[in-house]
């Protein structure tokens, strides 16, 4: 093993391995690792691939249910949607690359999650993107927003998947670390799901897709480190996306799967060839031999180290039935994609990497993933938040216009009009409402998609914040008329080696776990992104929840727009909780108080009431209440229908409080709706009417025109 750097403490540290972890390697293999082996360990044992800080806590999450076909551990989760069909979905972060190189970072984030979905045998039918940026006037924000949005669109639009939802937030805590969380969902036959476990000895290991280059070498290790002023040096670790190749790779993969040639399949994502080969061997209790001279490359003189750690995009690894080799090759020739047999499965527990006849790595395969370090990191519970300080009564009109015109609560159309929202011609509801809705092609069914989290809540109270992220997703699905099915979690946090950050992670996971159990929407896939810190300053804890719901027919779909003369009914209890509210943050520049408490029993009962009332013909439109409380929810409905609303009541807490488990319902039969709610013992009140051309909150009236203008201009005025 010549021409390779000698193993030194500096080299080990540069691979993100600490002294203890290096000793673990020495103990495991009984000798000094080669350079390539060190790279392999570094790739397998970094936070991004091994979940070494979070695994202990992730295990506590509820992941099972009668609807779950496959939970976490594969490329994506699989959930039954009836009639022999399944929805396959996952959310994954591409935070660090997007901050370094926004367009390519975001684009390859989308590419990676789409690949996770079609690797399972599912054709992607919907995408979402949850984005968090620094404060609007931070010098980097504008270019990050434009780059990330263009990257998301550039990849998803060309690939041809509709983007039907997402989130966009701005907060100074993300000044040095933006978050790009990409979600994708696909559709498959429930009995034709493909998994990563290899089977059979001597089976060909086949490389498919794009050629391997030097891009992204060490990317997963980069994504597991904090940023500092050397960040520009990290640009070469960001991969470059090619949606055209990905589209062909998907078509070819799905076509190949239909021929029965595929035994197992794994996409090459983080740590590319290393992770995918180890995963297939580990899950199948087999060893793997790779002959790297067979790997299609697009650069000259690539070393074993570079090939094993490259994160070139749009690549797959498969174990094929040997008798189907010619069929498989024909499919890939048709789509003009590379196809090469690069190794085989072997009986021993061994990961053997050969390059031109030379042994570059010879490691126990199971140990690479099975004995990855797992830490029970010290954590401290986040101290209870002090009660919210006094909030003087606000000028309701000014407050409403401020919120509606803010970067955080204004219209997101400027973003989602840059995404193809209607390709595949099944989009029933584009972004901008509670949830995006896509028909299950050729059936009466539809799926609803939402992603949610309120990071301010999570910082003040990780447990309630974790619960709230799930509860809000649940509400968004119910307000759309969908029955919530399952969730995926994308946990974005700072440095887990700090006990207070670890405490945020633990608290949020506990809250998420309690909520998904109570609301019967198990976690079926997910991703953890830690070390989102720059110069020691961390992001807000941001556990993004992506959720999927089912509409058996479009009759179940609840409209967003009230009609003239509808009565407005509020479901749920209002105490006027202003702690950590949007009002405090946007109008008063305050982020104090505790997060609102989430009563999961009430959430479930109220959500079920909304769907039952709609089934009984008592709901003409619905909207959940979240950030900005009743005032913002009523305004959203008014803008959706281009019709005024008049609500009774008074007081800042009534209008802008953020008590949970609430819905605003427009109905033509308020009495029946009230009777139905009361019969179930649920809090309900008739609070207003739809009509006119203004939003009237008690004694304050703001014209719809003024609100619409502030809402529409919120983003173009700042970023257009």
């Amino acid at each position: 093993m010549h021409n390779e750097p000698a193993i030194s403490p500096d080299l080990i540290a540069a691979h993100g391995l600490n002294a203890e972890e290096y000793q673990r390697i020495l103990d495991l293999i009984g000798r000094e690792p080669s350079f390539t082996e060190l790279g392999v360990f570094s790739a397998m044992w970094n936070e991004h691939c091994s979940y070494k800080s979070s695994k202990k806590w992730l295990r506590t999450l509820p992941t099972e249910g009668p609807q779950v076909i496959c939970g976490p551990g594969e490329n994506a989760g699989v959930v039954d949607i009836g009639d022999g069909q399944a929805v396959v979905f996952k959310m994954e972060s591409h935070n660090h690359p997007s901050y370094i190189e926004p367009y390519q970072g975001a684009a390859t984030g989308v590419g990676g999650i789409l690949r996770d979905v079609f690797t399972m045998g599912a054709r992607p039918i919907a995408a979402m993107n949850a984005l968090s940026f620094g404060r609007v006037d931070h010098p980097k924000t504008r270019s990050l927003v434009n780059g990330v949005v263009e990257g998301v669109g550039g990849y998803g639009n060309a690939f041809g998947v509709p983007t039907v939802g997402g989130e966009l937030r701005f907060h100074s805590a993300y000044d040095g670390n933006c978050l790009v969380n990409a979600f994708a969902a696909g559709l498959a036959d429930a009995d034709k799901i493909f998994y990563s476990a290899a089977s059979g000895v001597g089976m060909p290991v086949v490389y498919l897709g794009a050629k391997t280059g030097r891009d992204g070498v060490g990317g997963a290790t980069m994504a597991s480190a904090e940023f500092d002023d050397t960040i520009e040096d990290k640009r070469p670790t960001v991969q470059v996306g090619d949606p055209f190749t990905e589209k062909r790779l998907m078509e070819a993969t799905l076509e190949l799967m239909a021929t029965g040639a595929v035994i197992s399949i794994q996409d090459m994502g983080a740590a590319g060839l290393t992770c995918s080969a180890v995963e297939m061997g580990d899950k199948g209790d087999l060893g793997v031999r790779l002959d790297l001279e067979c790997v299609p490359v697009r650069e000259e003189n690539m070393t074993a180290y570079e090939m094993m750690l490259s994160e070139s995009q749009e690549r797959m690894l498969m174990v094929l039935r040997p008798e189907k080799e010619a069929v498989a090759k024909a499919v890939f020739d048709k789509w003009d994609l590379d196809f090469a047999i690069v190794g085989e499965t072997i009986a021993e527990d061994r990961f053997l990497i050969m390059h031109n006849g030379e042994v570059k790595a010879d490691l126990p395969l199971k140990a690479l993933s099975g004995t990855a370090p797992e830490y029970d990191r010290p954590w401290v519970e986040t101290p209870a938040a002090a009660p919210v300080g006094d909030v003087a009564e606000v000028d309701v009109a000014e407050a409403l216009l401020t919120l509606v015109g803010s970067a955080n609560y204004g219209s997101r159309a400027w973003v989602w009009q840059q995404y193809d929202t209607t390709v595949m011609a099944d989009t029933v509801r584009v972004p901008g409402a509670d949830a995006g809705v896509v028909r299950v092609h050729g059936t009466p069914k539809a799926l609803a998609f939402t992603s949610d989290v309120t990071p301010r809540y999570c910082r003040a109270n990780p447990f309630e914040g974790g619960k709230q992220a799930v509860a809000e997703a649940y509400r968004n699905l119910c307000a759309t008329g969908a029955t919530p099915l399952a969730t995926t979690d994308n946990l974005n946090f700072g440095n887990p080696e700090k006990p207070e950050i670890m405490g945020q992670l633990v608290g949020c996971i506990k809250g998420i776990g309690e909520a998904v159990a109570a609301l019967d929407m198990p976690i079926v896939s997910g991703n953890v992104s830690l070390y989102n810190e720059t110069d020691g300053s961390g992001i807000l804890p941001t556990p993004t929840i992506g959720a999927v719901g089912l509409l058996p027919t479009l009759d179940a779909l609840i409209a967003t727009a009230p009609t003239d003369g509808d009565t407005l009914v509020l479901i749920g209890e209002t105490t006027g909780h202003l702690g950590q509210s949007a009002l405090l943050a946007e109008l008063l520049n305050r982020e104090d108080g505790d997060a609102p408490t989430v009563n999961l029993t009430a959430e479930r009962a109220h959500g079920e009431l909304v769907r039952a009332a709609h089934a009984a013909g008592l709901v003409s439109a619905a909207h959940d209440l979240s950030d900005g409380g009743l005032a913002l929810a009523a305004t959203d409905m008014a803008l959706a229908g281009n019709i005024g609303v008049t609500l009774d009541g008074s007081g800042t807490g009534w209008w802008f409080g953020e008590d949970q488990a609430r819905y605003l319902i427009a109905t033509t039969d308020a009495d029946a709706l009230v009777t139905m709610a009361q019969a179930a013992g649920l809090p309900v009140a008739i609070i207003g009417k739809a009509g006119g051309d203004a939003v009237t909150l008690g004694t304050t009236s703001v014209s719809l025109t003024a609100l619409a203008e502030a809402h529409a201009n919120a983003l173009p005025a700042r970023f257009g």
Partner: protein
Amino acid sequence: MKAAVITFPGSNCDRDMHVGLQRATGIAPQSVWHKDTSIPEGLDLIAVPGGFSFGDYLRCGAIAARAPVMNAVVDFAKRGGLVLGVCNGFQILIEAGLLPGALMRNAGLKYVCKAQTLRVATHDSAFTAGLGDTATYAIAHHDGNYIADDEELARLMGEDRIAFTYEGNPNGSQMDIAGILSENRRVLGMMPHPERMNDPALGGTDGERFFNGLVGALETA
């Protein structure tokens, strides 16, 4: 009506076009692969769907316009066959020389996707004879800014070959042009997608009317 839809690598609206045509004709259109050197016999219509053929690398539609199948498409058009190009299909037909002008990057430099109302600028074609005065379809493109020299624009106007114009120009197109016809009025290129607006559940049925009108015009022809 016997129709076929061409698929290039990177096409992503081919299925949508199949569905749109099948709903109107009751018959599944045939699929034609870009590497084919001939097209099925007896076709009435060839549809060139939207997407990002060959990744839109080089220039939108430029590589697809040189695909093996395009010689047969050009011959078909010259013989008076109906050819419909939507979005990337429009770009391909221009690059193939079947329609004049060029489609540049949107004036706002951003991709734009939304429901778009159009004025039906001529009813004198098999494609537009069955339409009303306006129609709402979806637009979804980055390069839909139609441009041609003054002489060409004057000819399009004079020969009544502007098929659709935008109500509220979303991309900077000259004369608000959203779609144009060939000299023999048998080739239509348009940026908006009627196939995405052909079902009440998708937000409108103007696209259904587009395909039904096309079938109707062929039947009465």
